[in-house]
């Protein structure tokens, strides 16, 4: 007797779950083959709703996405997914009625949009950009992209902007989340991106999680950490350092709750203990490390560093940090960190989104260099990326104003000319000066210096700090705005031209996640209506621009991609150019990772992967280690096992930095006595234009709220659900209160996903930024709070398209 379809599905569910967890069940799917054949097809790809890079297979039936399962052989997620990953197929193809399906245009922003043809849309986009360039010069146009765009997309956009339109005004939202991590890696290790991999989760004996709510922001990676801890309860230690108690703290042995902005002092105090108790690794220091200070990167001695660190005794720092910090806790944390078999640090925005984010990154790396907790199993200083392709696309593909593809600095003549040669365009075509960084770019929009901007796959109108200030500029009638996206957002509200794009699984491309791993998703379902892949739009736009500006070099930029069909052949040709020409011989060498290789693997390839043979094994698990990293062998200068060949440190040393404590740009005072911090919740992604449209996720968290510490709530007479006004020097929100032992006393925390004007917290945050990385300090500003009423009925809010 065969099974019923229903029973079959249930058994499949049980068997899949059991096999991933390594359990055997006393059931089987006897009719498996018969039922398997009624699935049209399964397609491998990557989830795009956080930076983890989980791999899954999508089942397509009658052209529709109907089921999915994690890929157990994938080294990123081992088959597991979270709820966002489970439900995002609901946005694909014709599954969602609100998808943007036709190009929309209005000449003025106070007019309604009209549907237009693609032909007309591309004409308008090219004419407006060409007109602006002719009238105001090349730096009056800009591209603002995304860590959620495919690498092929970022690459072709920046190629046309730099090589074609002769401007480095190329930026992307990773500036708002990862720029300080880039700065930290380059200045401490001489090369961007982590040395190790996720594989260290199963090998680490101590986790130092600071400024990351991993449980909610990277749920599937957190599962691996949690599993490691639960399987080795007594031997694996978890230290969680954060001003807020979050679901991540649940598995911590030690929670260091410091006052916002005292992180640098805390990290220096841990270094103090490491030096005082002689917990450092003398051999490692002798062979691989140097000490540096100041803007001029002056080399200093160990003695000088020791003298500097003398100021950070645990007793003194405990007083600076406040919260629950004691000298004993600092000593314990430093001891666990230094003594474990392998310590893995993890952080995200809590460290990066600081006005001294690069310094905070440096100070975490310092602890690893001092103790030699690097390059061996389980030992790593590992920044978690927020978005699925911030690393692969934007950091590696040339998506920021100062970097060209494959980690080349714009300002280095030799590297710039190399890129021009590889592109076959005249020398001197790419300007030598970096363009506007994100905050300067939107300031330039405010000032009318930028007159035409293409915003792809992101919503700066909501995601920029102090966003009202920048929305003013975006509202200007003399600034022409193109937005390409899948749904209406706060930013499409300010656009002149909206271009509907294909979503993941509706087009083909590569995402590179946190662990240097590039993973391919091939098109599986059709995009709805007339939505198109961005790579096609850019090619067609460039051809028209070339005519408008009578400039054949613009056409030259897209010539290698002419005539290719847009769903697979075109992105493949772009990937080929990028990997075979641009990454070859660079530290992120991906020349072995062709589409053919990527398609064969359940997950993808970690660079460096200079040959197909190496790529087929998955690439490089740990960088800089001879025998494990082909480039470490190739560039070896001596017999030492580690070879730090990163392009930014010609001395091949790791640098320990002398960085003093520095508070936030804005401190609470008598008028604005609270710290305000912001962050994410597990069910929503960024500005919720996608997750807000998945009804299950929206119902679970229909609006943002403000978390208030119970002691503050009691003092101010605030009860759960009361409406609270949160005001800063910049703006104001009114949100319901959640009274909760999350934030420390004197601090409130607000989720940033809500599109409602009253609950859009970036109207309140501050746009101060790190002078090095230019990343804004979203995590800290000063505010005051006030109860305005008891609970009120609230409605979820999403931007819809007005006809």
């Amino acid at each position, binding site marked *: 007797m065969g099974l019923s379809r*229903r029973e079959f*599905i*249930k058994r*499949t*569910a*049980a*068997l*899949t*779950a*059991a096999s*991933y*967890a*390594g*359990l055997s*069940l006393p*059931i089987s799917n006897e009719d498996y083959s018969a039922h398997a054949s009624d699935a049209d097809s399964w397609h491998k790809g990557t989830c795009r709703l956080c930076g983890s890079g989980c791999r899954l297979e999508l*089942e397509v*039936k009658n052209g*529709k*996405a*109907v*089921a*999915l*399962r*994690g890929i*157990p052989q994938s080294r990123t997620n081992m*088959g*597991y*997914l*979270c*709820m966002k*990953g*489970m*439900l995002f*197929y*609901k*946005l694909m193809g014709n*599954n*969602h*009625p609100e998808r943007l399906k036709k190009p929309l245009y209005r000449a003025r922003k106070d007019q309604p949009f009209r549907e237009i043809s693609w032909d007309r849309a591309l004409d308008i986009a090219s004419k407006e950009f060409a007109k602006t360039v002719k009238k105001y010069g090349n730096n009056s146009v800009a591209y603002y992209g995304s860590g959620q765009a495919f690498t092929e997309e970022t690459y072709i956009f920046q190629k046309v902007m730099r090589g074609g339109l002769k401007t480095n005004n190329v930026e992307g939202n990773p500036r708002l989340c990862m720029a300080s991590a880039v700065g930290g890696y380059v200045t401490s290790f001489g090369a961007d991106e982590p040395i190790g991999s996720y594989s260290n989760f199963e090998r680490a004996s101590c986790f130092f999680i600071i400024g990351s709510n991993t*449980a909610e922001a990277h*749920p*599937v990676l*957190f*599962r691996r950490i*949690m*599993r490691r801890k*639960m*399987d080795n*309860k007594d031997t694996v230690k978890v230290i969680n350092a954060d001003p807020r108690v979050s679901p991540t703290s*649940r*598995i911590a042995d030690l929670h260091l709750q410091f006052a916002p902005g005292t992180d640098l002092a805390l990290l220096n105090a841990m270094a103090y203990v490491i030096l005082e108790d002689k917990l450092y690794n003398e051999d490692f220091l002798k062979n691989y490390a140097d000490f540096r200070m100041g803007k001029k990167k002056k080399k200093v001695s160990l003695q000088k560093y020791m003298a500097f660190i003398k100021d950070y005794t645990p007793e003194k720092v405990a007083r600076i940090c406040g919260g629950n910090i004691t000298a004993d806790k600092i000593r314990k944390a430093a001891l666990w960190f230094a003594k474990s078999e392998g310590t893995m640090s993890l952080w995200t925005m809590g460290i990066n989104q600081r006005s001294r984010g690069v310094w905070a990154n440096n100070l975490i790396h310092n602890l690893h260099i001092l103790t030699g907790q690097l390059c061996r199993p389980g030992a790593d200083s590992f920044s978690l990326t927020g978005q699925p392709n911030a690393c692969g696309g934007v950091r590696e593909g040339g998506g920021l104003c100062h970097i060209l593809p494959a980690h080349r600095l714009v300002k280095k003549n030799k590297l710039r000319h190399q890129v021009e040669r590889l592109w076959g365009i005249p020398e001197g075509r790419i300007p030598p000066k970096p363009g506007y960084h994100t905050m300067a770019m939107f300031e330039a929009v405010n000032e009318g210096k930028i007159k035409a901007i293409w915003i792809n796959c992101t919503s700066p109108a909501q995601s920029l700090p102090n966003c009202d200030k920048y929305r003013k500029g975006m509202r200007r009638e003399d600034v022409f705005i193109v937005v390409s996206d899948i749904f209406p957002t706060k930013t499409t509200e300010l656009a002149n031209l909206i271009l509907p794009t294909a979503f993941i699984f509706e087009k083909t491309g590569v995402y590179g996640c946190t662990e240097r791993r590039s993973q391919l998703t091939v098109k599986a379902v059709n995009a709805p209506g007339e939505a198109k892949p961005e790579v096609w739009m850019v090619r067609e736009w460039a051809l028209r621009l070339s005519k408008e500006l009578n400039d054949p070099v613009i056409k030259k930029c897209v010539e290698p991609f002419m005539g290719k069909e847009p769903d697979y052949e075109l992105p493949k040709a772009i990937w080929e150019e990028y990997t075979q020409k641009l990454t070859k011989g660079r530290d992120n060498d991906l020349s072995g990772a062709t589409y053919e290789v990527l398609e064969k693997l359940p997950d993808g390839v970690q660079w460096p992967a200079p040959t197909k043979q190496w790529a087929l094994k998955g690439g490089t698990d740990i960088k800089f280690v001879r025998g494990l990293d082909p480039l470490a062998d190739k560039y070896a200068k001596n017999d030492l096992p580690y070879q730090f060949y990163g392009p930014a440190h010609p001395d091949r040393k790791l640098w320990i930095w002398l960085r003093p404590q520095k508070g936030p740009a804005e401190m609470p005072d008598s008028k604005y006595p609270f710290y305000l911090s912001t962050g994410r919740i597990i069910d929503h992604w960024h500005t919720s234009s996608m997750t807000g*449209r*998945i*009804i*299950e*996720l929206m*119902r*679970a968290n229909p609006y943002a709220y403000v978390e208030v510490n119970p002691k503050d709530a009691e003092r101010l007479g605030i009860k759960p659900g009361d409406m609270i006004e949160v005001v800063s020097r910049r703006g104001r929100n009114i949100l319901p209160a959640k009274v909760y032992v999350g934030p420390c006393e004197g601090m409130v925390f607000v989720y940033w996903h809500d599109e409602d004007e009253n609950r859009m917290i970036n109207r309140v945050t501050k746009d101060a930024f790190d002078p090095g990385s230019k990343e804004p300090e979203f995590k800290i500003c000063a505010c005051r709070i006030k109860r305005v009423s008891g609970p009120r009925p609230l409605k979820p809010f999403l931007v819809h398209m007005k006809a």
Partner: protein
Amino acid sequence: MPVGGFVINVDPERIEESVHRLESVEGVEIHGSDNKGNVVAVMESSTSSEMEAMVKAIMAIETVYSVALTYFNGEDEVERGRDGV
């Protein structure tokens, strides 16, 4: 009727109690567990909203550390076209 296959991680020292509490959530079938605290569960509900609510209820149990999905089938919902609307 969507069906999901999940691995739920519970406190390894309180497995029996956790399984018991999981079984009391309507629509949850427990298919097995190991001594590390991995529990294999199948959830069935009439809409995926209901399944999300079930997951929320499970997350609220204090001995539960994480709920991870491995397989999800929503073919009826997609075919009925009521999906995401």
